[in-house]
């Protein structure tokens, strides 16, 4: 199987020759930026550089996917959020202390939403990658879910307080923001994305599992209906208490965090959704060595997790050696367990 075939089969929870190594968020590092001369922040705003840096996930690290969207800020920039683009060794971020929206009526997509430099950069990069690597690996795009857009555009604290004070108003905001998720997702699909990551950070570190059900489950079901490629929901942190709901969303996959033990997570989702994850970033990939990375890969494979990869966007100073160990460990595990997964 090619990497692309392997990944798409795993999203359908069909048999694969080996577990795919998947990167639904970002594996960009400073080392890789230097290797292909595509540093941050430019690699987030220039399609050629974005494609060049993204491709290293396949050409240098050996993953089965390429993800050109390294951050979660492209569409927020196009929506008018104040940005902090940072330098090569730091992530660009949205200045959430300076929100742009207060009321549901404020939620409007600007006319240039899809032609803005920072949204178009991604669609152009996907076109480049599709042409160069489209037959070999899965090209994954990324469109922010309405909950995450809410943090960016309303500010985290005001948005969460609104959800407490006025759930109806919050739902109206979410309903309006989902248009950005759909439009940007469709643009990436038209550009050639095989699948889309949909980060929507309703994490257990912030809100309850019941919050996910009340505010997001129906919206996510609707997004699955409207975006005709496999969707990978990404939520960091503790999510075990909402995985049953997530498994009902119709998403192809859930990208989950190392705070959730693989075997318990697999038990909860019970083959209703594929799981992607969950190699720990700060304590393993960033701080430890290949042997510890290998152990975590094996834990996921032993639990029959459908696709293996880092739990979230990795720290920019993570070593290439540790990242290369993920596909290597997957191949070794399968060599030792010769039955197809």
């Amino acid at each position, binding site marked *: 199987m090619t990497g692309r075939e392997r990944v798409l089969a795993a999203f359908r929870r069909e048999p694969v020759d080996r577990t795919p190594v998947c990167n639904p968020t970002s594996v960009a590092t400073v080392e890789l930026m230097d290797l292909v001369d595509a540093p941050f922040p430019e690699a987030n705003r220039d399609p050629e550089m974005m494609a060049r840096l993204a491709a290293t996930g396949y050409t240098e690290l050996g993953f089965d996917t390429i993800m050109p969207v390294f951050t979660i800020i492209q569409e927020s920039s196009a929506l008018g959020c104040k940005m*902090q683009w*940072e330098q090569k060794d*730091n*992530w660009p*971020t*949205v*200045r*959430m*202390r300076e929100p742009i929206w207060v009321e549901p009526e404020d939620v409007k997509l600007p006319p240039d939403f899809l032609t803005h430099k920072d949204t178009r950069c991604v669609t152009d990069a996907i076109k480049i990658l599709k042409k160069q690597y489209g037959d070999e690996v899965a090209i994954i795009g990324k469109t922010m879910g309405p909950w995450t857009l809410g943090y960016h555009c309303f500010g*985290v*604290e005001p948005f*969460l*307080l609104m*959800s*407490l*004070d006025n759930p109806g108003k919050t739902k109206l905001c979410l309903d309006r923001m989902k248009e950005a998720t759909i439009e940007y997702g469709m643009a990436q699909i038209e550009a050639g994305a095989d699948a889309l990551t949909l980060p929507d950070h309703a*994490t*257990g*570190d*912030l*809100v*309850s599992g019941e*919050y996910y059900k009340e505010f997001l489950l129906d919206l996510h079901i609707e997004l699955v209906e409207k975006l005709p490629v496999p969707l990978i929901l990404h939520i*960091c*942190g503790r999510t075990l*208490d909402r995985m049953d709901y997530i498994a009902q969303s119709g998403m192809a996959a859930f990208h989950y965090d190392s705070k959730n033990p693989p075997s318990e997570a697999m038990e909860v989702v019970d083959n209703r959704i594929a799981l992607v994850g969950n190699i720990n*970033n*700060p*304590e393993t990939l*960033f*701080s430890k060595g290949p042997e510890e990375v290998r152990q975590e890969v094996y834990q996921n494979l032993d639990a029959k997790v459908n696709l293996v990869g880092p*739990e*979230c*966007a*990795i*720290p*920019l*100073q993570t070593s290439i050696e540790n990242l290369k160990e993920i596909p290597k460990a997957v191949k070794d595990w399968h060599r030792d367990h010769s039955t197809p997964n």
Partner: protein
Amino acid sequence: MASINDITNEFVRNEIQEYLEQPDERESVIETFAKISPRMQEIGAALIDGQHKVVDELTLKAIADDIQALEVMDDGLIAAMRIVGIKFRENFIYVPEVLGCARAMKTGMAHIEPILSASGIKPAGRVVMGTVKGDLHDIGKNLCIMMLRGSGFEVFDLGVDTSPDEFLASVEEHEATVMGMSALLTTTMPNMAVTIETFIDEGVRDDVKIMVGGAPVSQEFADDMGADGYGKDAMECVALAKKLVKEQAEVES
């Protein structure tokens, strides 16, 4: 030993019975609330329920009736925040609900802080707090600051996206004994270690105790980078700050 029936406020009694599961913790909270006047219990109940307008009204009225500001803060607000903290730690409530309670506490503290400042009470310690470079998240840090201030600490808030040099300059300027760093992102956590290295390089690491926190941070990560302590939540942050102030005083004596 006090019993639950010694607490006059029904809402507070119900909260303790429903959410406080650890026997020692439950006993200690009952002991505290049994000694608190019905008026202060009423403020506490409103705070736990996130009713900031009620807290505002009751706090103002208490001060107008010559109740000591310190009593309103300790018995009305901080005692109630302890119950909120336990409910949060045990996942009975989450950040939106905590923010609602924090808003109520802030409303009350807005009336109390000017009175306490004017009275010249010596702070429990001086703490510099900030979110590390590249990270713009501050809810957790702000909750910690609120609880620290409520516990008598003088806190210098550097806000978000704080560079190692800004931490260093602030600790030196304010002669802080404790410094707290927060990060929400796994991508920015390494900047905690970079900041600690800056303190080592400048030869001032022993002048200040450094504590860290944030959703992805763990005790193991804190130990690896050489921090003096890790706090899981705002309640632990206060306990840790008290411990570190004491340790630093012992180092300096």
